[in-house]
């Protein structure tokens, strides 16, 4: 009986080819949206995860409660770490490569105009690691051993002074001459380097300002599994040093990763939720088509009942038709979704200028394909249930009499 229903359903759909095609297209569009948005979300997540997980042994200690404010570079909380804090960290087991980020303000002069800028000093090795993901608008990164060379943010180069600064340009900072080695691309929000920051080596910073205001401490752990426990040990020790419970925050990349993943996960749910609206519309389309079909085939239904079809037989014929419509639509939608996600990525990569190392690649997972097929089958069954029930309920005499 199952095979006969398949046969009947295919014949009936073929008989109403253009109508079936249009109905099926509705499902395809919904599934396409789901597949491509899931692929995009997955790609986004993996791009960010890949970026961050290379830093999984890094612990960042910042003052205040929020690690991201310290990330801004010069923008500090006004509280600094002491050498005693550094010493505490260096004494801990399993810690290596402790380095600091210094921050402060300085008077910069370019082309006769003077202004106060925020200044960050970092170990050059850490700088390369930390800013690896950022694209340079011009020039190159500082190299180990460089002196009196700086990296500048996009706004410093183009907005702060009367004239644009280019690579090799000379800026006076607190009266000392510095040469621009590289200019960061425009970051906008959420970048690791702020647009209006000057970046130099720790040594230059100390020489220039005579200060060591440590706003951020980077360190690495020998065993990634200990990162969390070491981070909390450090946090407690520094808080004890300063006699306050919220003086320092030690954050592992893993915890940042988790935060980012939960955000992208939520984003994905929202995107799929929006795409589901298309599916709801499509399922109404199926229901409409099936209802029309039931009306048109009143006589046929009556004949089938007269020659012995049960209500269940009639229902299964119509439900199968709905399932066939939606699953073929779903398969087409998956294929369209593969192309659609490529197209969307192309657009996003061009519009959002994520930087060379943050290029999005859509990733279509098996589970999203399985989800799409399941959802389209369920949509098919649900939207043909009512028409099928209506068909099954028809009285054979009424149906046979129907002209």
């Amino acid at each position, binding site marked *: 009986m199952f095979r006969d229903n398949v046969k009947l359903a295919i014949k009936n759909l073929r008989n109403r080819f253009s109508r079936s095609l249009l109905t099926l297209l509705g499902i395809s569009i919904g599934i396409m949206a789901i597949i491509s948005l899931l692929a995009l979300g997955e790609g986004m997540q993996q791009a960010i995860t890949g970026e961050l997980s290379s830093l999984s042994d890094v612990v960042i200690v910042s003052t205040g409660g929020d690690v991201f404010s310290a990330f801004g570079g010069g923008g500090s909380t006004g509280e600094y770490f002491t050498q005693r804090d550094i010493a505490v960290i260096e004494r801990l087991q399993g810690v290596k490569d402790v380095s600091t980020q210094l921050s402060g303000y300085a008077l910069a002069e370019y082309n006769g105009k003077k202004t106060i800028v925020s200044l960050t000093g970092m170990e050059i090795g850490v700088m390369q690691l930390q800013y690896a993901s950022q694209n340079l608008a011009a020039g190159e990164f500082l190299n180990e051993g460089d002196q009196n060379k700086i990296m500048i943010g996009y706004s410093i180069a183009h907005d702060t002074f009367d004239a644009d600064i280019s690579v090799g340009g000379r800026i006076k900072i607190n009266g000392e001459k510095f040469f621009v080695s590289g200019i960061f691309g425009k970051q906008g929000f959420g970048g690791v380097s702020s647009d209006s920051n000057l970046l130099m080596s720790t040594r230059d910073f100390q020489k220039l300002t005579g200060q060591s205001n440590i706003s951020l401490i980077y360190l690495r752990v020998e065993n990634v599994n200990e990162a969390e426990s070491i981070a909390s040990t450090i946090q407690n020790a520094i808080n004890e040093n300063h006699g306050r419970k919220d003086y320092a925050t030690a954050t592992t990349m893993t915890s940042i990763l988790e935060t980012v993943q939960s955000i992208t996960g939520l984003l994905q749910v929202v995107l799929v939720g929006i795409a589901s609206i298309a599916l709801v519309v499509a399922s109404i389309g199926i229901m409409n088509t099936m209802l029309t079909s039931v009306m048109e085939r009143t006589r046929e239904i009556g004949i089938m009942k007269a*020659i012995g079809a049960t209500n269940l037989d009639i229902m299964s014929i119509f439900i199968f038709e709905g399932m066939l419509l939606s699953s073929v639509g779903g398969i087409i939608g998956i294929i369209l979704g593969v192309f659609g996600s490529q197209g969307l990525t192309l657009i996003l990569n061009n519009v959002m200028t994520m930087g060379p190392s943050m290029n999005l690649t859509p990733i279509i997972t098996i589970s999203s394909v399985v989800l799409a097929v399941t959802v389209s089958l369920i949509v098919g069954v649900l939207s043909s249930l009512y028409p099928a029930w209506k068909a099954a309920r028809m009285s054979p005499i009424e149906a046979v009499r129907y002209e």
Partner: protein
Amino acid sequence: MSKDVIVTQNISKTYGKPPLQVYALRETNLHIKQGDYIAIIGPSGSGKSTLMNLLGCLDKPSSGNIIIDGSDVSTLNENELARIRREKIGFIFQKYNLIPTLNALENVELSMGFAGVDSQTRTKKAKELLEMVELSKRLTHKPSEMSGGEQQRVAIARALSNNPSIILADEPTGNVDTKSGDNIMRILEEVNKRGETIIVVTHNMAIAQRAKRVLRIQDGEVREEHV
């Protein structure tokens, strides 16, 4: 004496509620035996179709009982009625009522499919039946590609496919020319000779007179006509 395949006990079919109640069929008692060949005649609107629908389990009587092959169908639910229609009764309609999207072979196989017969047996049986009604060369033709007479013969093959004990034919020759009509009646009589019960509703007295029994319906009342 052969057994009764259909017995009706005081069946009535009414429409509407009193006092506006209309009787389509009034307290009818029939005994139809295995192997009977019955013609039902009467003017339009006399209740012929109502009686056919009741005998064919397409409809239920307002009162009274119908016993088919020993079971009282007035008490059966829809699924059980579907089973009776599938196993005990073969329908032949005036307008053939084949499924337009299926070819001759598939149309004949359809009700065997509902009965759960496996596809190999089904195809074999359908081919035999179509051969019997001389349509071996039309197996893959759609109804729209066949003449009225041919379609009606496909319908006969379909009606016989589940070996029913009763064939109900509603004006089987009404839409075909005389020659085809004669052919159709010849096939039905052939089937009757094998022991099957045939009930034919007709306007055509020539056809009615070929039957063993004639029932005349007038205003919902059935009388046995002695021919």
